[in-house]
């Protein structure tokens, strides 16, 4: 088991093997994510019951929560990849780090947008400077900073290392976003889903949410893997296996 994991790790670490492996995953990711998204969203939007307080407007949850969660997870993953880049100098981590930035920023923007949209009917305002919302806006800016820095440096190796530093420094923001609703008296609601307790939500409402969230995660993984594969091809353009691949294509 351990030996298998170690072998997998090494194969993932090599661009060429990653390319092949990821090529295998892609169709599975695409099909399963689209399936789950389709089921989850129709279930959530059409069949889940309305909320006793918010009525139908609560259905934004099926986009808002997965997007917000992915924005946080994406940045966290970027910071982890950053540590791997700086400590172990792993090539694949460099590519992964930079491939997450754009989809992560999109998710962050989506969470902000749906949150603002949702805020009007529930709170009575689109925007409010509370700790959760402000720190989420900062997260978007951090994503933009990572993207700008990465594109300003020509050498891919150095670009990855520089963005790794920024991603790690910015990661202090993640626990702040996550726990702001507990530490401060925010307008944003506290967590509905906790690890230790039953969710404060009726099952017929949270099952579609779980399906949606899983669909979002898989779709995100799909996009990231696709971007990683493209970036690998671009970076290894000089390598023999890529040239052979290109020859095959012709």
């Amino acid at each position, binding site marked *: 088991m351990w030996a298998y994991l170690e072998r997998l790790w090494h194969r993932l670490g090599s661009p060429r093997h990653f390319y092949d492996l990821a090529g295998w995953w892609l169709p599975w990711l695409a099909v399963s994510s689209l399936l789950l998204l389709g089921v989850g969203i129709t279930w959530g939007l059409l069949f889940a019951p309305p909320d006793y307080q918010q009525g139908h407007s609560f259905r934004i949850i099926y986009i808002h929560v997965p997007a917000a969660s992915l924005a946080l997870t994406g940045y966290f993953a970027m910071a982890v990849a950053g540590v791997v880049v700086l400590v172990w100098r792993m090539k694949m981590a460099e590519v992964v780090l930079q491939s997450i930035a754009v989809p992560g920023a999109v998710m962050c923007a989506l969470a902000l947008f749906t949150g603002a949209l949702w805020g009007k009917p529930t709170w009575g305002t689109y925007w409010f400077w509370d700790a959760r919302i402000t720190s989420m806006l900062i997260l978007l800016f951090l994503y933009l900073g990572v993207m700008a820095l990465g594109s300003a440096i020509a*050498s891919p*190796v*150095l670009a990855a*290392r520089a963005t790794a530093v920024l991603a790690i420094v910015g990661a202090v923001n993640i626990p702040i976003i996550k726990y702001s609703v507990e530490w401060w008296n925010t307008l944003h609601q506290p967590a509905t889903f906790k690890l230790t307790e039953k969710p404060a939500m009726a099952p017929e409402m949270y099952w579609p949410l779980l399906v949606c969230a899983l669909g979002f995660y898989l779709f995100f993984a799909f996009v990231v893997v696709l971007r990683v594969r493209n970036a690998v091809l671009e970076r290894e*353009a*000089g390598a023999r296996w890529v040239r052979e691949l290109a020859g095959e294509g012709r």
Partner: protein
Amino acid sequence: MSANDLLLRAEGLTALRDERVLFRGLSVSVAAGEVLRVEGPNGAGKTTLLRILCGLDQDCEGRIAWPRAEAAGRPWREELLWLGHLPGLKSTLTAEENLAWLCALRGRAPRRPLREALAMVGLAGFEDLPAGALSAGQKRRVALARLHLEDAPLWVLDEPFTAIDRAGVEALEQLLAAHAQAGGAVVFTTHHAPAITSRSLLLGKAA
């Protein structure tokens, strides 16, 4: 050559720039007493190689070891003195002040008074002029004065003769030779043809 004499050993160095291979799987080692000249036409990768050896360019593959420093439990950077294209002088500080902070980075007292070193490179009388007011050659001479002050065994010099006049070139050649004789080592590049080289490393034919 005993292992203890090996200052620097680099193996499997590969540098790609813009998809062009400057060198692949290059191995270099420098032992005490050697003067190694890195040769090659413009764009061959001489500067790149020197910067990689000094740990200044991380955009490469390969292993670099400093056997003697490792054996002695010293940080390898203590063994190294690097002079690149840019002399590293702050233009508003005087020549003497510049030498003071540059030498202090090594954390050990300089081998002789700073003014003496300045005089040795022909800058007596220019000690208190801001470095920005010096001519191109004078600036390089200030940087070269560090060779008289610091006690690193390995000197890595990128085109040290640039902008130096004929008398200065001669003096510098003698200095390099003397340093090697005294158990140090020099790695350098130049497009002149000095007589002091003990070994040459020829890089590709780029430009």
